[in-house]
């Protein structure tokens, strides 16, 4: 029998894997992919909450799914902007290594 627990733990696992990718990768695109994984983890959690909602007034029934839609929207926007930035930086410095991009240093 499936419970909310399953989906939350699944989300947590995905989240921390994505976090590792975002923290440990040199390639900026890999970092971005880690972030996408994290966002998906959150989406799984949200939709899970929506499905297992025990208090169901009409208006809040699908709130989790609505949340997921907005997260997808923002994630798409973020991916577009971030990739544009990566390409722009690559053109200027011929690298996508986030460890070498430190223009905002002291």
């Amino acid at each position, binding site marked *: 029998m499936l419970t909310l627990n399953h989906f939350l733990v699944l989300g947590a696992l995905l989240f921390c894997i994505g976090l590792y990718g975002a923290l440990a990768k040199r390639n900026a695109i890999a970092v971005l992919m880690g972030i996408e994984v994290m966002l998906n983890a959150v989406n799984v959690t949200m939709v899970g909450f929506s499905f297992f909602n025990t208090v169901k007034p009409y208006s809040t029934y699908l709130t989790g799914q609505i949340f997921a839609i907005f997260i997808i929207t923002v994630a798409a926007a973020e991916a577009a902007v971030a990739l544009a930035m990566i390409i722009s930086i690559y053109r200027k410095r011929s690298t996508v290594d986030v460890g070498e*991009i430190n223009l905002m240093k*002291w």
Partner: protein
Amino acid sequence: MAWYQFSWLILFGPLFAFVAIIFGTRMWDLATRPREEAEATPADAAHAHDEAEGETQLIVTHGPHGEEVVLEDDEDPKVPRLTMGARASGYLGIVVVALACIYSWILLLNTSGVINIAPPLDPRGLTVFSYDWLNQGTASYSIAFHIDNLAIAMTVVVTTVSLLVQFYSQGYMENSAGYARFFSYLSLFTFSMLDIVFAQNFLVIFVGWELVGLSSYLLIGFWINKRAKPAEDRPAPATAAIQAFITNRIGDVGFIIGIMILFAQTGTFDFGTLADKTNPHGVVQAFVNSGNTGLLTAAMILVFCGAIGKSAQLPLTVWLPTAMEGPTPVSALIHAATMVAAGVYMVARTYPLFAAAGPEALGVVGWVGGITALYAALTALTQTDFKRVLAFSTISQLGYMFVGLGVARGTEFGVGPGMYHLFTHAFFKALLFLGAGSVIHSLHHAMHAEVQDMRKMGGLAKYMPITAITWLVATLSISGFPFFAGFYSKDNIIALAFDQQDYGLYIITLGTAGLTAFYMLRAYILAFGGKGGGFGGLWGGPYRGEGEPHESPRTITIPLVLLAIASIIAGYWTGFFNYVQPINPSAPNLNLGEVFTNPLTWVGVLVSLVGLGWAYVLYTRFELATIHNVVENNALLRFLHRLTLRKFYIDDLYDLLIRYVVLGISHIEAAFDAYVVDGIVNGVAQAVTGLGRSVRHVETGKVQAYMVGFFGGLAVLAIVVFALVTFVK
């Protein structure tokens, strides 16, 4: 009641005049001033703009009749002619103060019963204006004005002298730059002085106190470009202004501490409440009944410190003689008739508090006054500067007033004797100063330089008879010659000292009366008479200056005549004692019959006649040079002469004190500031900078480092929460 209720108009009229002149007619004056001609020399142009050229020694300007006149560089800047704006400023100031003067005379005549247009004033006075500035818990700070007979008498003095002085200034200041500014300052001063007079509580009187200090500062330093004259021992007006201001501040420190003590104990500033014997906030309940009379005495002596500073009593006398560097009308108005009397008025206003305090409080008042009177009279004996003699005589007479207040302790006389002398003194001292101003004005036209040294005068009575005769009236009045105003008021104080068995003060005041007579007649003869003049040397004689002096214009002589009349008849207001103390109707009035039958009176008259006679004999029978030689050839006389001429070395003592003690402490404090305070400040700054320099390496600019920080912090928090949930529960 309406007549009384609207008397705040007297107070605010001059303030209005000040504002109107500063923002209105003075702007008009500045806008319409003629541009200097193209061919004017740079020095001349600078002169017109109130800026003295540093290097220029001689300045060519145009005299009153169009001739070229060579002036010394330290003359005050001259304007060729006054603009309409400047004249309007003068007229505005005069009209406003004239209306105030008329109003205050109406009040005086009504309250003294001469005319009857309004019901009698409540003996405790009437609050005419009140504004709650701040209400804070139990203490309330209000701006409140109040009139009673004492205030009305003082208002009359202030507005009358102010009116005459402003009228006089039209002639005296005619050629001076900043004519409009001068009248605005005079209006400001009148307002400030009336603020003191109308004050209902210590807060308001303190504000007025500081305002008169400010206007005195502005007016002493009015001729900002005038230089010091070391040969004549005369400082620059700017320096004198600073000295006056700072010396007054020293007294004010005591004043404000005294006020704070009173306020801390009683919780009120209001004079009426403080003096009320039944009110729990009154000093009697707050101090005396709780066994704190000593503290009250200390507080009142501290309050008196303010009066010492403002009235130039010992040891703060030094500023008044140097304040004579200001224009002479200012000397007459502020430094003789009204502002310096503010100290006396303040003591009179707070007299119930002094009376409630221990006998030491009024003892201090009396003895400070007595010693100052003697000191100033001795110093005045040898001064050669015309105005300085008058300055010391002012200090001396103020001493008399304090003696009058001091010795009247515990009696039914109250503030009467002191205030009476203030009242009469205001007229004859203003007259003396305005007469001196008339002489200086005239000699200025004759010699084209500002001459105040009496050794360059002599025999002026021939040239300027009106000035001479009015000056003689004032001289006799201040000397205590019978039937003149000063005789009644001064003799009253001397007799009171005797009646109170205060024989020390009696001897001092009596001796001072003789000295006063001597130096005043000496000044008169040196200026107006001399050996070979009429009336045995009293009228005319050899003139020791240059040029041809003339009698001053009408704007100057009219006030002199009016004041001369006042200097005589002011002594015949016999109801004064009763008038200023309506709350104590048993105060005995001046009884002319008793005055003339009392042998003590004739002792006083004798002493002053001796003084007058000696001066007459000495200065009309011998040339000034002869007297000088005799003094220089006698070791003892030379020593005494030096001693008094140098003002008993009090100025030099202050000089040493400031040069070595005050500046020494200042150097130590400067070092403390430079090394310790700055060290701490710079140390803190350097520590912060160093910390920032080492910590900034945290900012690597790498986004993953920041993410590690963020999620690492989250991980640490997770551990903490885990630990708390698991082990604490």
